[in-house]
C-alpha cells in the first residue's frame, strides 16, 4: 500500500528536487561549519539562516498549493496554521529558558512575571517537553483546520465566501493573540530564546542543523504531497477543483476529500511554522496578519500553482527579491514588488514553473502535430474559484 503510494510519488522531477534539497541539507551546513570564513566556498551563517527561513516559507507555500492548486480551496488564512505551529515551538523554547530569564523565575516566562501572573496557565503545561511541543505544532493547526473545515465544507461554503471566512479566522486569531490576557505574550509574542534540545540556539551548529531540518522537512513534504496528488485521491481532488458537482454525482463525499487535504495542509504549515520560529528567534501575532496569508498565495501564484515545484520556487524568488530589494532600494522596493506581482499575473499567468512546463509541453506537442498545438492552447484548466 505504502510502496505503491511512494512509487507514484517519486516521479522524475520529484526525485531530482528532493535529492537537491537533501544535498543542500548536507552541503550547506558542511560549507558553513567546515570551511574558513574567507574560503571561496564558505557559506556565511547569515545566508544559512536566511535560506533556512526561505525553506520554511517554501514549505508553507507547498502546503497552500495542496489545497489551492490541487483542490481549488483558496485559503486566505494559511498563515494562521503556520503561526500556530510557530507558537507551539515558541512555547517550548520559552519554557527552555527556565530560570535564565530577566527575573530568574524558573517557571514563568518574563512577560508573565512583569504582568504579575502568579502561575502558569494550563495551556502552557507540557510544553517543557520537546516531543509534546512538536506534537502540538502539528496537532493544533490540524485540529483547527479539522473543526473549521468540517463546518465549512459540510455547509458547502465555496469560492470567495470560503476565502473570506478563512481571512476572518486568521484576523480573529490575530486579535486574540494580540490580547495580553490570552497568555501568549501579546504583541511582543515569544522571544529571547536560549536553546533548543540543549543546544544554544545562536550557535552556528544549531543554525546549520535547523537549516538541514528545514530542507529535509521540505523534501519529505514534497514527496508526501506528490504521493497525495498522484494517487487516485489526488485525481479526485483535482476533479473537485475543476468540476465539483461532477465528483459529487459520481458518489464522492466532496467534503471529506476537501477536509483531508485541508487538514494535511494545515499540519504541513504547522511544521513549517515550528521550524521557522527557532531560526528567526521570535513569534508574535504579526504572523497572523491577513496580509501574510495573502503573501503566501502570491508566492504560490508566482511560482506556479497546481505544480509541486512552483510554490517552492515562488517562495524563494519572492522572499529573495524582498531581501535584496529592501536593502538595495529601501525607499522604492514596494514598487518593484508590486510591479512583479502585476507583471507575473499579466505575462506568466501560470507562474514561473507552470509557464516553463507549458513551454516544454508546447514544444513537444508542436513536434508531434501542428493541430494539437491549437488544442493545447484551449486546454487551460478553468481557474477554480
Amino acid at each position, binding site marked *: 500500500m505504502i510502496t505503491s503510494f511512494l512509487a507514484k510519488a517519486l516521479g522524475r522531477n520529484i526525485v531530482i528536487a528532493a535529492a537537491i534539497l537533501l544535498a543542500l541539507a548536507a552541503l550547506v551546513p558542511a560549507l558553513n561549519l567546515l570551511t574558513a570564513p574567507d574560503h571561496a566556498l564558505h557559506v556565511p551563517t547569515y545566508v544559512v539562516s536566511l535560506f533556512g527561513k526561505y525553506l520554511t516559507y517554501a514549505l508553507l507555500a507547498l502546503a497552500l498549493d495542496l489545497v489551492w492548486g490541487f483542490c481549488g480551496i*483558496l485559503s486566505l488564512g494559511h498563515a494562521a496554521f503556520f503561526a500556530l505551529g510557530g507558537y507551539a515551538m515558541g512555547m517550548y523554547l520559552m519554557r527552555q529558558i527556565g530560570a535564565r530569564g530577566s527575573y530568574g523565575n524558573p517557571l514563568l516566562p518574563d512577560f508573565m512575571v512583569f504582568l504579575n501572573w502568579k502561575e502558569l496557565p494550563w495551556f502552557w503545561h507540557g510544553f517543557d517537553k520537546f516531543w509534546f511541543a512538536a506534537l502540538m505544532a502539528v496537532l493544533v493547526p490540524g485540529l483547527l483546520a479539522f473543526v*473549521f473545515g468540517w*463546518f*465549512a465544507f*459540510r*455547509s*458547502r*461554503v*465555496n469560492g*470567495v*465566501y470560503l*476565502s*473570506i*471566512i478563512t*481571512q*476572518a*479566522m486568521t*484576523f*480573529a486569531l490575530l*486579535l*486574540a493573540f*494580540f*490580547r495580553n490576557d490570552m497568555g501568549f505574550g501579546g504583541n511582543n509574542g515569544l522571544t529571547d530564546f536560549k536553546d533548543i534540545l540543549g543546544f544554544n540556539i545562536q550557535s552556528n551548529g544549531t543554525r546549520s542543523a535547523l537549516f538541514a531540518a528545514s530542507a529535509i522537512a521540505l523534501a519529505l513534504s514534497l514527496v508526501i504531497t506528490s504521493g497525495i496528488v498522484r494517487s487516485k485521491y489526488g485525481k479526485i481532488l483535482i476533479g473537485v477543483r475543476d468540476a465539483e458537482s461532477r465528483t459529487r454525482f459520481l458518489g464522492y463525499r466532496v467534503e471529506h476529500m476537501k477536509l483531508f487535504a485541508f487538514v494535511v495542509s494545515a499540519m504541513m504549515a504547522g511544521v513549517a511554522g515550528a521550524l521557522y520560529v527557532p531560526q528567526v528567534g521570535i513569534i508574535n501575532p504579526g504572523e497572523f496578519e*491577513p*496580509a501574510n496569508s*495573502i503573501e503566501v*498565495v*502570491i508566492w504560490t*501564484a508566482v511560482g506556479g500553482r497546481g505544480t509541486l515545484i512552483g510554490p517552492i520556487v515562488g517562495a524563494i524568488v519572492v522572499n529573495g527579491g524582498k531581501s535584496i530589494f529592501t536593502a538595495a532600494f529601501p*525607499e*522604492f522596493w*514596494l*514598487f518593484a*514588488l*508590486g*510591479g*512583479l*506581482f*502585476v507583471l*507575473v*499575473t*499579466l505575462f506568466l*499567468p501560470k507562474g514561473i514553473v507552470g509557464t516553463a512546463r507549458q513551454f516544454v509541453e508546447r514544444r513537444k506537442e508542436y513536434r508531434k502535430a501542428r493541430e494539437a498545438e491549437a488544442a493545447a492552447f484551449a486546454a487551460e484548466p478553468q*481557474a477554480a*474559484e
Partner: protein
Amino acid sequence: MHARLIHRFLQCLFATVCLMVTLLATDLRAADDLRVMVDALGGGNFQENQKQVEALARTGDPKVVPALEALAEGDLYQRKIDGIVFIVRPAGSSFKLIDALTGEEAGEEAKAALEKIKVNNGLRRTIRAALGGLTLMSPDVAVRLQAAGTILRTPSADALEGLDAALAAETDNAVKVVLGQARAASILVSDRPADEKRAAVATVVETGGRDSLSLLSAALASADESLRPDIEAGIKKIDDQLAIWAAGQNIWYGLSLGSVLLLAAIGLAITFGVMGIINMAHGEMVMLGAYTTFVVQQVIRTSFPGLFDWSLAIALPLAFLVTGAVGLVMERAIIRFLYGRPLETLLATWGVSLILQQAVRSIFGPTNQEVGNPSWMSGAFELGGMTITWNRLWIIVFALAVFVFLLFLLKKTAMGLQMRAVTQNRRMASSMGIRTPWVDALTFALGSGIAGIAGVALSQIDNVSPNLGQGYIIDSFMVVVFGGVGNLWGTLVGAFTLGILNKFLEPYAGAVLGKILVLVLIILFIQKRPRGLFALKGRAVEA
C-alpha cells in the same frame, strides 16, 4: 545664563511686589488699580495668576473681560522692558499691541521683546468661571446665556451673589431657566442651609444629564445626613434616565459605525460584488479620496481661506474623478486581461495596492496629513440624553445618500442597465451591441470613484496616511460577503448589522473581544447561509 537668571529673579520680585500691591488695593476700583492688577499677570506662576484672575473677577468690572479672554486664548503678552501687559495680534513677523483695558492700539513690537503669559488648564478654568460671572449682565442675550451655562458647569459659591442679581434683572425666559439651574448648582457647592439646598437638589435633578449627576455625586460626599436621602434619590432618578438614553446612544454608535462600514464597502460592492474582481486595491482608492480632500483643503487654506467650509463639497467631485480615473487606468491596463480569472485579480490588485501606497508615501510623505472638519461637521448637540456629533450624523446621511445614488444609477439608468447586462451575461450583452469593454471600464471606474468619495468622508474621522486603506480592506470584504456578493441591499443591511452588533458587544466584551466575536459570528453565519445574507436563489447562480 546669568543674565537670564537675574532677569527671572527680577521678574519674580516684580510679580511679588505687584501681588502685594494688588492685594492691598482690591477695594479700590480705579482704572489705575485695574491696570496694576492686569500687569501683575505677567511674571506670575499659574497659582498666583489664578488668584489674580479671581481678584480681577471680584472687581466685577466688565473692562477686564477682553484681557481675560485674551489670556485664555494665549494672546496676552508682557513687554519685557517695562512689564506692561498687552493683548497682541500677530502682524507679520512682529506683534500689534492692544491696550489690555481700553482696547486701543498701542503700536508694534518685535516678538522677541515680548513674553507670553502662559496658561494651563487650571488657569483656563478659573478664567472661564470669572468670565461667566463678569458677562452675566451683558446686553447680548446670547452672551448672557453662555455665561449662565458656564456657571452651571463650573458652579461656585462666589457666583451666587452675581446670580441673584442677574436673576432679578433678567428678562429673557431661556436665560432665566439656565440661571436658575446655575444658581441651584452653586447653592449645592456653597455652605447655605439645608432647606435651601434641598430645593436646589430638586432643581438640579430636574435639569438632569451627566453634569447634574456629577454635581450631585460631588455634593453627596460633603452633604449632611438630612440631605443624603434626597441626593441619593436624585442620583438614582438621573441614573435611570441615563440608562434608557444609553441604549439609544448605543444604537446610534452602531448606526454610525455601520455607516462607516457601508462607506468603506460600497465601492467594493461594485468592483467585487458586481464585477467579481477581488479588488485588494480598494482600500487604496479610499485613501486616494482622502488625500484628494487633503490637497483641496491645502489649496483652500493657502489661497481661499473663506471657502474652508465648502472644502468637502469641492473635494467630493474631485475625489470621484481622481479615483475614478485611477480605476479606469487600472482596468484598462491590467484588469481587463483578467476577466474570468477572479483569483488572479487578487494578485494583480494586491500589487497595485503596494504601488499606490508607496507612491502616496513618496509624494506626500509617510506621516499623517491634517484634514480639518468644516465648522458644520464639528462639535455635537444633545438629543435628550444622547450626544450626537455632527460629523457622525453627516456621515450617516452621506452614506445613505451614496447608497441611494448608486441604487438609482444601477436600477434606473441606461448605464446601470448595461452594467448589469454585462456582468450577468457578457456574450449576450456584447451581441446586443453593448460595448462591453467600455461598460467594464466604466463600472470599475464607478466603483473606484465611489470608494474615493467614501475616502472624503472617512478623512473626517480617521488618519489620512498611506496606511488608511489597509485599515478598511478586511472590514469591507467582510461586509460585502456577509451581505451577499452582488447585492447592494445586502451590503447596506450587512454594514449596519455588523456595526450595531459590534457596538452592542463592545460594552460587555471590550473592544478587542467584541471584534473577535463579530468575526466568529460571521464565520458561523456563513455556515448557515453560505452565500451571505441576501443570497440569490435558483439554479442560475449555481450553474
